[in-house]
């Protein structure tokens, strides 16, 4: 939520009030130049198309700029002919031949201008989207190479927002603002040149009035910017409150907090109204003020122009042309000001994406040693591990024979997953080594190593696909029979068949169309199908109903049979029957041994055992 709040809101394809995007407050990138350079490098492969875009943009703008000039010529022609006739000059009449030619030329110019404008946008759309595609591809390749501790330490929303919002910002800017920047730039120069050609004096008037309007608008713009920030902030606050009160509705009701919730809502809502009203008002007066200044400059130009015409120094058509130019002048100037903001926030977005791309990757893959299917002997030899200076595991030694069961016990938050992370080489050791069938896990390619492990955790990750595909995730190219057999072994077949589409039932995004327990059964089926020699299991079954829990237990027991198993144990029987118990607390392995050995030691385990199970065992 806070993430969304902080980002400037882009209008996207909607129609906001005019000037709304002027209010954007850009975040400042840390290293503008380097990031911009790197971003531009992404455009390189599309150099050819970009050249077309730029050429088309320049041509289209130039043609548009020449337009009023030719129109002015036509009008002068018209005027001179008409007034010559009125004054009764001999031979004076409107030269429709000449006017016709000029107008044809003008029409041609406009057609070309529009055609080039289209060409420019046509090519830009593929340039922009292809660039964004490349960026996304780079990011997704990167995601596969990042070590797991990146994922554990970075909020998912943060990463997601870099991949979606930030890349989206880059795309929109490329699509809409880049060419606008070029055309605005060309327009400003072109118009200045044209105006100077017509009359330097009038140009001075036009530019003075433009400066005047900048002078007047700036403070308003600044104030409205703060108001818009205020509005965004209160809106975020209000929406946060709404979200909280709605998601907590039962609690709000149970504790009779409705009135207080409404009261707070009204306060914030009122603040939002005040901020919004001011922000909208200020943004609404910018246009009329600019128009007024524009008219002011029109009058001045008319006066000065009138004097110049009487002196015969410029023609009537020139004045028409000049007025058109001076009117077209303000737009590109304000646009360039906007674009500066937009580019700044785009570079800031690109910087965040590049930061992600620059994250350190996991250590390179070992090649060579092959481990087809392990027997399942696991050994830790002098293993040291810790994050950022705090050692969690020091000099750990364990030896597990194929088929043995290791129970990991300890209070919540004791870091039981750390061991799993090390076993599957999600994390790298600081010292020592872990051996599978006597082979150092670092000498194996990660894929080869992990193929020998199966995993059933409490966090049941399933993806948005059919149940069949989810089970088959454990084995590429699994047959229908194998899938059903695995599901049956996992006691999942029955419930799957009660679903409307059976094995083809599509799990929705939150997989909320099946229960937590059923999800767990599916992950067990997935593990059974992959048939690994070593299993990692978490016995915890919270928010699973008792009946399903029985099934899960049965399926887990089956899964452990004949395999080396590491179990995050919650059940007394599992712990007691384990060949080795690892007792963990605060991230460390503090005791290890068998049940009787540990009870005899009368340490942490004995204490834990007595508090957990003694009471129920006695009664």
């Amino acid at each position: 939520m806070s993430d969304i709040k902080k980002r400037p809101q882009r209008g996207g394809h909607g129609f906001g009030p005019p000037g709304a995007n002027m209010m954007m407050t850009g975040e400042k990138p840390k290293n503008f130049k380097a990031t911009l350079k790197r971003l531009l490098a992404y455009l390189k492969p599309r150099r050819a198309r970009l050249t077309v875009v730029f050429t088309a943009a320049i041509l289209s703008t130039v043609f548009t700029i020449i337009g009023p000039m030719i129109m002015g010529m036509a009008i002068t022609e018209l005027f001179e002919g008409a007034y010559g006739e009125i004054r009764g000059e001999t031979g004076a009449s409107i030269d429709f031949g000449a006017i016709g030619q000029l107008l044809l030329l003008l029409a041609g110019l406009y057609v070309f201008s529009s055609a080039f404008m289209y060409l420019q946008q046509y090519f830009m759309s593929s340039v922009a989207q292809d660039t964004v595609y490349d960026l996304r591809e780079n990011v997704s390749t990167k995601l596969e190479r990042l070590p797991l501790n990146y994922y554990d330490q970075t909020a998912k929303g943060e990463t997601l927002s870099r991949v979606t919002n930030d890349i989206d910002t880059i795309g929109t800017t490329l699509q809409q603002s880049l060419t606008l920047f070029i055309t605005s730039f060309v327009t400003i120069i072109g118009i200045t040149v044209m105006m100077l050609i017509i009359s330097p004096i009038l140009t001075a008037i036009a530019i003075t009035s433009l400066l005047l309007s900048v002078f007047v608008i700036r403070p308003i713009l600044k104030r409205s910017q703060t108001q818009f920030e205020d509005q965004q902030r209160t809106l975020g606050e209000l929406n946060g409150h709404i979200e909280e009160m709605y998601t907590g509705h039962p609690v709000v009701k149970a504790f009779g907090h409705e009135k207080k919730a409404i009261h707070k809502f009204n306060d914030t809502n009122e603040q939002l109204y005040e901020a919004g009203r001011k922000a909208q008002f200020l943004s609404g007066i910018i246009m009329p003020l600019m128009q007024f200044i524009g008219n002011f400059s029109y009058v001045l130009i008319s006066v000065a122009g009138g004097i110049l015409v009487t002196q015969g120094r410029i023609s009537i058509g020139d004045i028409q042309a000049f007025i058109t130019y001076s009117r077209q002048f303000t737009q590109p100037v304000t646009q360039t000001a906007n674009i500066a903001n937009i580019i700044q926030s785009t570079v800031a977005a690109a910087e965040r994406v590049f930061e992600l791309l620059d994250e350190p990757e996991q250590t390179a893959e070992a090649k060579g040693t092959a481990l087809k299917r392990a027997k399942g002997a696991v050994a830790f030899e002098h293993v040291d591990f810790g994050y950022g200076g705090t050692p969690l595991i020091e000099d750990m030694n364990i030896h597990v024979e194929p088929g043995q069961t290791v129970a990991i016990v300890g209070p919540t938050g004791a870091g039981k997953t750390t061991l799993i992370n090390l076993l599957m080489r999600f994390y790298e050791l600081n010292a020592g080594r872990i051996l599978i069938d006597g082979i150092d896990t670092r000498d194996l390619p990660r894929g080869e190593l992990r193929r020998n492990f199966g995993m059933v955790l409490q966090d049941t990750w399933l993806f948005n696909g059919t149940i069949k595909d989810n089970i088959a995730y454990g084995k590429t190219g699994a047959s229908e029979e194998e899938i059903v057999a695995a599901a049956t072994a996992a006691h999942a077949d029955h419930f799957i068949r009660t679903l409307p589409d059976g094995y083809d039932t599509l799990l929705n995004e939150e997989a909320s169309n099946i229960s937590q327990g059923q999800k767990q059964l599916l992950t067990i089926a997935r593990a059974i199908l992959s048939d690994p020699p070593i299993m990692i299991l978490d016995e915890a079954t919270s928010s699973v109903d008792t009946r399903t829990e029985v099934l899960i237990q049965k399926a887990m027991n089956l899964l452990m049979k004949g395999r080396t198993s590491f179990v995050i144990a919650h059940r007394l029987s599992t712990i007691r029957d384990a060949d080795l118990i690892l007792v963990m607390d605060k991230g460390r392995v503090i005791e290890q041994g068998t049940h009787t050995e540990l009870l005899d030691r009368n340490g942490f385990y004995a204490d834990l055992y007595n508090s957990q199970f003694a009471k129920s065992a006695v009664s």
Partner: protein
Amino acid sequence: MQRRYRKGVVRMLKILKNLLIYKWLVGMVFLLVFIQALADLFLPTLMADIIDNGVVVGDVPYIWQIGGWMLAVSALGAAAAVTASYFSSKAAMGMGRDVRRQVFTHVEQFSLQEFDEVGTASLITRTTNDITQVQQVVLVLLRMVVSAPIMLVGGLIMAISKDARLSLVIIGAMPVLVVSILFILKKGIPLFTEVQKRLDRLNLVLRENLTGIRVIRAFTREQEEQVRLEKANRELTDVSIRVNKIMAFLMPVMMLVMNLTVVAIIWFGGIRINNGAMQIGDLMAFIQYVMLIMFALVMASMMFIMVPRAAVSANRINEVLAMRPAFQDLGTQSADRERGTLEFDHVTFSYPGAEEPVLSDITFSAKAGETTAIIGGTGSGKSTLINLIPRFYEVSAGSIRVNGVDIRDASQDEIRSKIGFVPQKSILFSGTVADNIRFGKQDAESHEIEHAAKVAQADDFIGAMEDGYDTYVEQGGSNLSGGQKQRLAIARALIRKPDLYIFDDSFSALDFKTDSKLRAALARETEEATVLLIGQRVSSLMDADRIIVLEKGRIAGMGTHEELLRTNKVYREIAESQLSEEEIA
């Protein structure tokens, strides 16, 4: 298109009713926009005069004079526009504020039944995004679209008054412009929906990759995931390019139509001037009118996009406002007849529209100091049962008595004030730890807060936090662990010193040591109250005075642990699956 549009307008009008309180403001906006439009329309005529009678003949004083007029008119227009902006912001934002307040206040009255019906997420978007969307559209309508018809009609009148025959050019150009804009939009807008869909898809796959990274790597499926991502990326890119290529037509076509119209006007205008039917300044004014008219048309076309869009939002808001709470809060008695008792008297409950009742004929009673535990499978109706007690839902038949009073005879506030409710999902709110505990009792003193925390076994971890009780809890308690959240939720219920405690599987995230300490402390605290407890594990319920076994919404057995083991097959099955033989014995 036509019918959909009309329907949309009706929906919008319903929401726009809320503008009625601002009718004076809106009236002012209309008036001011009208003045502004008149000023805008008058200006080209003055410009024509400056050219024809001033510039052409070199009459500088005349130019000054008319120029003065122009500035006056233009100042009037600007003043009108500024004031209109003031009123329109006030009206639009005020309307947004009012609708928002209405919706929120209305939703706060909803029972869980209405929440189930609409869905929490949907209610949130309806109260936030949908209202903001409508508000934004109202603002644009008031500010720009209102002036479009005035400009259009006024511009036409002025153009015709300048030269009726030349106006034919405009009449000819108008449909070309409108049709081409609408054609492009009609092609483009459906694609925008498609872009959104594919963007959602890409985000979904990405999210899955982020959350499932362990599983993906464990199964070495990195390659396949890359392919999935690439495919989603490709599909999004393709449709984005397509939509942008279509939208690329919009500007060039609009410009072309306008520019060619101007060219045609100069040509035909020239002929008119040649015939002496028109002056050169008029021609220039005429060109200005063409621009004004065309601009008004573009504005009007925008309505075709904006109104249906906002209408969807408006409709979603209206739906919420139209919902009535399924039952009324009319009770007046005070609930203090027999403190610490709870009775269910032949209670049956079905969700609205459901064929089968979720709970049938539930009868039991609990006295002060007793603990009643409920066990049963998913869908057995455990959570529904406890949700009936604070009257989150209304019983279909039978009655529930808290402290000896039928919950329908006392106000909901009264009943709920007697209950300490600990939901299955520990919902916390943004604010300090102390604020969260105080949620249970708004006037609680700090020693009460500390006591509640101590009983809930929360004082240790609170003390270990940097700011202690003043530590800030993020929205949803995201900076706390599951166990910590659960203990705060328990403390929040304890601080009320209620007559009835309800724990819905509330100890699941606690380790056994904390769990047993908490239970011991709770037992002392709840001596004079009745405790209702839902649990999954027999070991955590077996000490209760009464265990109710629920199956398919019916009581399948009731008694102590030992009694049930002897007499109840369902209970024995559950117990056997969870406890080893010696534990059962």
